[in-house]
């Protein structure tokens, strides 16, 4: 049966050829990889020579989405003009898939050099040692001056006092209101002095005037919760880091959140919303006041009525959300200097900031007045400066290593309150117990 062995040989040969072809193809297509390996050899002593070498930086990102992919390309082009020896290859994924993908890449020793992280997930990555300590890079870079950045935003990307990331952009949440509904009901527009009581009064007055309009809307979920309790002087943790979920301030704030739905009826319940988005209801003129993010400016620009923004009413204190994205370098990256150039460009350069502002792609964290004045001149809303006023009372998310577990758990307890299966006091008592278990 010689035929059989021939056949076996032929198959093996085919298989081997198949494999080796792939390898050669791989080598051909990535021309830049060869210089990279030489860089590694030179890296040890001389920084000067490494800058001469061509380097490719892999950048993982989620924030552009389809809407801003072209803007990212423009930023990359601007960067490659300044640094002709550095090539940026971006890998974009949707936010929902991004972190799963990133974790798999890191676990598979295929981590990108630079990764984009939102503030909440930044802590998870920094605490698990996946990010490079930027202290030395910052110290060695004489050109870079951290004061060009909003300091709150800059410091947000420190973990345990060490800089592991650089803020890239931020956004926040303010009170949007439908001017027409206010006018028709003869109610004064919201202003910075408003409290929860004023908000409730206005909501009731407007609803008395219109049949199928809701007075005010804010979602009942974890993100809204940690901000609302801050508006009542509460918090998830106290300054020393102890869990204080079950405090009187928090119970009151949560009571207020559900009372708007069940007691006063100024906010629709999930059932009454029946799957409609609050943003669509607002655009339909069905919601008078809406707490939502400044990323809605674009969507609301074509609204068939006048609208504006104001600072959020608080109870005993003012508090506003603060969401930031930043760039960090993987601790496995072999091109730290080149990666740092890209991180610095995205974070603090006027070029990147101008492209960002022109495209209304969140806000750059730089303090340069010229760049920001462009942002302020666009309407609607007329009161754009509110976006910056809100930064004076920002609350950052109470991040912990076990971030997703905590948000899932508290979200579940809040839902029980929303469904009237638990009182605010019961829910927060059980949430405090469960949070202790999660963090221990």
């Amino acid at each position, binding site marked *: 049966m010689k035929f059989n062995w021939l*056949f076996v040989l032929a198959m093996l040969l085919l298989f081997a050829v198949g494999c080796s072809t792939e390898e050669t193809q791989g080598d051909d297509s990535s021309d830049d990889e060869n210089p990279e390996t030489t860089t590694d050899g030179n890296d040890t002593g001389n920084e000067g020579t490494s800058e001469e070498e061509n380097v490719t930086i892999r950048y993982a990102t989620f924030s552009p989405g389809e809407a801003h992919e072209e803007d990212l390309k423009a930023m990359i082009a601007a960067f490659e003009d300044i640094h002709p020896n550095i090539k940026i290859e971006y890998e974009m994924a949707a936010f929902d898939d991004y972190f799963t993908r990133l974790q798999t890449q890191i676990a598979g020793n295929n981590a990108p050099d630079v990764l984009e992280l939102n503030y909440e997930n930044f802590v998870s990555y920094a605490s698990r040692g996946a990010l490079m300590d930027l202290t030395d890079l910052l110290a060695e870079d004489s050109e870079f001056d951290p004061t060009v950045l909003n300091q709150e935003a800059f410091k947000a990307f420190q973990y345990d006092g060490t800089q592991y990331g650089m803020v890239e952009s931020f956004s926040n949440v303010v009170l949007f209101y439908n001017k027409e509904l206010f006018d028709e009901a003869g109610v004064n527009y919201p202003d910075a002095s408003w409290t929860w009581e004023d908000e409730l009064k206005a909501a009731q007055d407007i609803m008395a005037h219109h049949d199928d309009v809701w007075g005010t809307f804010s979602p009942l979920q974890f993100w809204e919760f940690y901000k609302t309790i801050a508006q009542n002087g509460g918090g998830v943790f106290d300054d020393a880091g102890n869990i204080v979920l079950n405090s009187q301030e928090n119970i009151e704030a949560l009571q207020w959140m559900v009372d708007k739905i069940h007691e006063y009826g100024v906010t629709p319940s*999930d059932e009454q919303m029946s799957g409609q988005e609050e943003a669509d209801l607002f655009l339909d003129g069905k919601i008078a006041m809406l707490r939502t993010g400044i990323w809605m400016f674009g969507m609301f620009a074509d609204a068939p009525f006048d609208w504006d923004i104001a600072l959020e009413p608080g109870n005993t204190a003012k508090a506003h959300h603060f969401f930031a994205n930043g760039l960090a370098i993987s601790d496995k990256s072999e091109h730290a200097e080149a990666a740092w150039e890209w991180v610095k460009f995205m974070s603090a350069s006027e070029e990147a900031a101008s492209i960002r502002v022109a495209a209304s792609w969140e806000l750059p964290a730089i303090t340069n007045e010229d760049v920001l004045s462009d942002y302020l001149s666009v309407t609607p809303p007329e009161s754009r400066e509110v976006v910056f006023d809100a930064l004076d009372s920002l609350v950052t998310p109470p991040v912990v290593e076990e971030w997703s577990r905590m948000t899932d758990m508290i979200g579940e307890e809040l839902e029980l309150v929303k469904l009237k299966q638990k009182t605010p006091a019961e829910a927060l008592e059980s949430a405090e117990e469960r949070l202790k278990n999660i963090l221990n």
Partner: protein
Amino acid sequence: MVGFHGWKKLSVLAIFLLPNLIGFSIFILFPILGSFVISFTEWDLLSPPQFIGIDNYIQIIRDPGFYNALGNTLFFIIGYLPTVIIISLTIAILLNKSIKGRLFFRAAYFVPVVSSWVAVSLIWKWLFNPAYGIVNYVLSLVGITGPAWLHDPHYAMIAIIITSVWKDIGFLMVMFLAGLQNIPDTFYEAASIDGASSFRKLWNITIPLLAPTTFFVLIISLINSFQVFDQVMIMTGGGPAGTTTVLVQQIYNHAFRYYEMGYASAMSWFLFLIIFVITAFQLRMQKRWVDYGN
């Protein structure tokens, strides 16, 4: 496979199986073995895994989240399994008769099977919409105020069961049809001559002789329903208030959202163990009620 000749044959066999074996090994066998090793480690995917022995398995026993998910999964199975089997068997018996347009009906019932779970879940999500959905509209026609379905902790899982039954009826129906066509007509003829009623024929001929098919369908459906995931993820995401969180979703959360790949792997093996024990039990019990006719 003895002797020189046998080995030769085996090697030829191996060559033909090789393409499949490579794929199977890379994408199924090695990951399964890998997950078994990972289940004894603490691994956040970002830093190297650490061996911690059977701690993960001990943690499962103490984890209230696991029992909640197990309870929800069992609730799903108890609601889903009998319903889907009875309905699909009934339809199969009806479509086995020579009625007009039976080919059309067979195809119609099979359409949901070939549709993607994502599309089916999204459509049913709309059908169950409390204010605008067809389900509550139809209920209102007969004077019933429908519940908030996916927003109501008491009805969310029921809505998921209804959706799953609707999608799977076609597949089970085809299985049952194949089984029904294996029953020789002679039995029915003999029964008719003896003056048996339709119900008698169903009870004493069809159901006993269909037992091998029923057994197969039962095992397959039970294994599948322990792994229920897609429809839950899309329709409720585990809510409201965790009342539809199922085991596989819990595994997914621990692996990719809570940075606990080791614990998630241990949960997977625990789930495997549950399915294995139940299936083994069913295989033993089949002697009591399944007759293969030999």
